[in-house]
């Protein structure tokens, strides 16, 4: 039977732990320091387990999915050929657009420098949508920089070390992106709802000419977190509740966030 004293002790420890976490949340800097220390403690163990588990997992996956891998390889070759053709066709148009934007003193995403990085890890948690990439401050990657891949915006850099960075994805519950649609005439906010859920959007008036497939792109408004023109999401479903003046939208990310291997970090910092 537990004594009253030992019970009090456990309750005290638990209350202390809760208080500790409240304090850490309130003091972001302390939490970051402790977090880095904790990562350093675990890293030799993760490294060892990776070393043992990954070759076994790859061998197993390769043996089981060999025919799929061959098929996928052929599809990718065909896709690459089509993309090369599109790139060649677009390069002349892009030059023209950049020149027009320059004469109008507008920023042009295509003119921004990028850092290519490899995705080294996905978030291990259910409550966070993020990825770790292989480039950090040593390569010019800074907190706040937008990251694109697979045809659209995937998120922004939220923390860095000299050799790596963490990118918070647009599907994270804390993510909010200012967007524009219908050729820049209307604005909305795209909201993340977690790893497994579609994106949401702030109120959009029913007068807006939206249809499934319509593209939302970053608005680039002054003080915003992203430059203008990055595709963010496509309209997936449009629901109109009788008696309301706004649509309820679900959106799908423009980029395929489930297969992220390489990403481009845009060398662009939000205005402070």
């Amino acid at each position, binding site marked *: 039977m537990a004594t009253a004293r030992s019970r009090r002790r456990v309750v005290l*420890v638990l209350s202390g732990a809760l208080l500790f*976490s409240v304090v850490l949340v309130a003091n972001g800097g302390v939490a970051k320091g402790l977090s880095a220390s904790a990562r350093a403690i675990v890293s030799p163990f993760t490294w060892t387990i990776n070393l043992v588990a990954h070759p076994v*997992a790859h061998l197993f996956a390769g043996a089981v999915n060999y025919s799929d891998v061959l098929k996928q390889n052929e599809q990718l070759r065909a896709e690459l050929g089509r993309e090369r053709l599109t790139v060649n066709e677009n390069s002349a148009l892009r030059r023209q657009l950049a020149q027009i934007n320059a004469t109008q003193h507008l920023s042009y995403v295509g003119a921004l420098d990028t850092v290519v990085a490899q995705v080294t890890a996905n978030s291990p948690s*259910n409550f966070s949508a993020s990825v770790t990439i292989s480039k950090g401050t040593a390569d010019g990657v800074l907190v706040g920089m937008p990251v694109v891949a697979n045809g659209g915006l995937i998120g922004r850099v939220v923390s860095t070390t000299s050799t790596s960075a963490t990118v918070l994805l647009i599907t994270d*519950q804390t993510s909010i992106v200012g967007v524009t649609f219908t050729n820049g005439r209307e604005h909305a906010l795209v909201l993340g709802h*977690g790893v497994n*859920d579609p994106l949401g959007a702030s109120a959009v008036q029913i007068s807006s000419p939206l249809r499934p497939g319509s593209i939302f792109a970053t608005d680039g408004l002054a003080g915003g977190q992203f430059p203008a023109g990055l595709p963010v999401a496509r309209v997936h479903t449009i629901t109109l509740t009788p008696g309301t003046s706004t649509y309820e939208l679900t959106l799908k990310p423009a980029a395929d966030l489930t297969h992220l291997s390489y990403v481009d970090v845009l060398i662009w910092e939000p205005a402070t």
Partner: protein
Amino acid sequence: MSRGIVALVLSTLILVATQITIISPLRIAGVVVMVVWLWPLALSLTGSTPFAVASGFVAGVLFDAHSQTPFALSGVVGALIGLLVSFLAREGVGDLDAAAWWVPPLIGAFVGLLAPLLYVAFGAVVGDSSLWRASVWPMMLVNAAAFFVLVRPLSRAARWVAEFGGWSRS
């Protein structure tokens, strides 16, 4: 440092590393099975409340260090699971480890169902209400099913650790 603490620290570190490198990438229906929350439950079955609470907290803190979520929140949930199951063993159904075979899996399923909810609730307490925006139901169901299946093998591993550390009740 006593043998018990060495066993506890080493087993907790290996468990967290396994969670991050192997279990988290193996999402079931898009959901991560939180073995770092099952571990304190398994340790509770060995009969040591302090070790279960301490290991649950440390495993959660180390896990949180790898995620963009409120730091130490998983630790608080882990510690609470260790505490609740220990109390249940003492005040409720008795010696869980020696109980009928289906008792630990049932408790595991209940804890798996409860844990994500506790996490979101504590998140709101520490000021992060955005956690409510995620779909908690799939997390609860998948973790309940996984805990139901995994609680037996993991409690066996916990018993080995307890025997090695010298705090096993057998």
